[in-house]
């Protein structure tokens, strides 16, 4: 981000920016930057808090009227409650994946996919309701059913349908994984039996308690073993977060 500020300013465009990693900004020294003590992914601080977001954006824009630079200012306040990690476990129903079922006809992968299918059926009504309430979904390309099909086909060595926008299996898997997580979070947003979790609690639940998380780890492992470089990159970095990689 800081380099972009430098490039644009050198081309004659006045810039100001928000900084999330102060140490990076200290090194790059862009013309104007406001460091904020917020979580990665939340540069304006807190969702659905217009007054707080306005304070942040005004503080960043005010740097345009400083007389000389580079200038790196600090935003004085933490984000209000709700954007900081919570240590409490998220009280959500888990869908345990058991490989001990007396069904000798199914492989472990098939049993995992069946657990995933059942979990999605439970999630789907809440996901649909969230989309109906908001008038849209943050899911970009793959509905939950379409995500299921992508992972099902990949794990069972079947070809994944591609198109002009999504022209490789690696890209399809990455986008389907992102969309699946968004769909699970949207389904949680409207459930009456829980308080909306913060990112830390949601991730712990998704990656450690759901069949979806287990399916994505299986996809990650298969990607790592592939010959294709893009699939390997998926497996190494782009499907499972660093802090959940060994869980």
């Amino acid at each position: 981000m800081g380099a972009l500020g430098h490039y644009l300013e050198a081309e004659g465009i006045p810039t100001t920016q928000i900084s999330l990693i102060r140490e990076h900004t200290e090194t790059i020294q862009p013309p104007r930057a406001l460091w904020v003590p917020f979580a990665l992914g939340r540069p304006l601080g807190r969702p659905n808090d217009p007054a707080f977001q306005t304070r942040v954006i005004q503080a960043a824009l005010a740097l345009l009227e400083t007389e000389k630079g580079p200038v790196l200012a600090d935003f004085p306040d933490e984000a209000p409650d709700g954007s900081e990690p919570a240590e409490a476990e998220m009280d959500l129903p888990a869908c345990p994946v058991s490989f001990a079922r007396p069904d000798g006809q199914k492989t472990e992968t098939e049993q995992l996919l069946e657990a995933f299918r059942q979990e999605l059926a439970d999630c789907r009504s809440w996901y649909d309701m969230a989309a109906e309430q908001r008038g849209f979904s943050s899911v970009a390309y793959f509905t939950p059913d379409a995500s299921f099909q992508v992972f099902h086909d990949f794990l069972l060595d079947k070809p994944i349908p591609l198109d002009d926008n999504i022209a490789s299996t690696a890209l399809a898997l990455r986008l389907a994984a992102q969309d699946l997580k968004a769909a699970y979070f949207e389904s949680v947003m409207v459930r009456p039996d829980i308080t909306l979790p913060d990112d830390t609690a949601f991730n712990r639940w998704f990656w450690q308690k759901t069949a979806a998380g287990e399916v994505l780890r299986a996809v990650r492992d298969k990607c790592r073993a592939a010959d294709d470089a893009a699939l390997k990159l998926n497996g190494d970095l782009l499907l499972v977060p660093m802090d959940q990689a060994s869980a």
Partner: protein
Amino acid sequence: MARLTTLPEPMHSHLADLPCPTFDTRPWVTGPPLSRRRVAIISTAGLHRREDRPFEGMTGDYRVIPRTCTAKDLVMTHISTNFDRTGFVQDWNVVFPLDRLHELAAGQTIGSVAQFHYSFMGAADPGAMEQAAGRLAGLLKGDAVDAALLVPV
């Protein structure tokens, strides 16, 4: 929070070890008072219109986001799995504060909102963004933008 010293491993080492470019020059461009400036948002969150191409690879390309875009029109395909996306799912303004910018223009805190805004995918090599930034500067000038608000993710 994003204080580097408090981030747990392996994120701490990953971010601490990221190479950051340094520059010999210190460009500095002035402009009119904020109340007369035309502001564009430049995001690195890997955002684009729903019907646009997803971000892929580290090529330093960008997507165009028109001023008329609303929350339902914008999606995120940044390649990283290591930042919070639940805030964006709840409220796009926590990443792309276009609604806040419209409010500031209506209140005459800023002069106006640019016709077009832009998003890169921040995991790209900064050097790969340099040529794109040159083209972007021409587009911003054509839109009479004299304030670019750069927002990371």
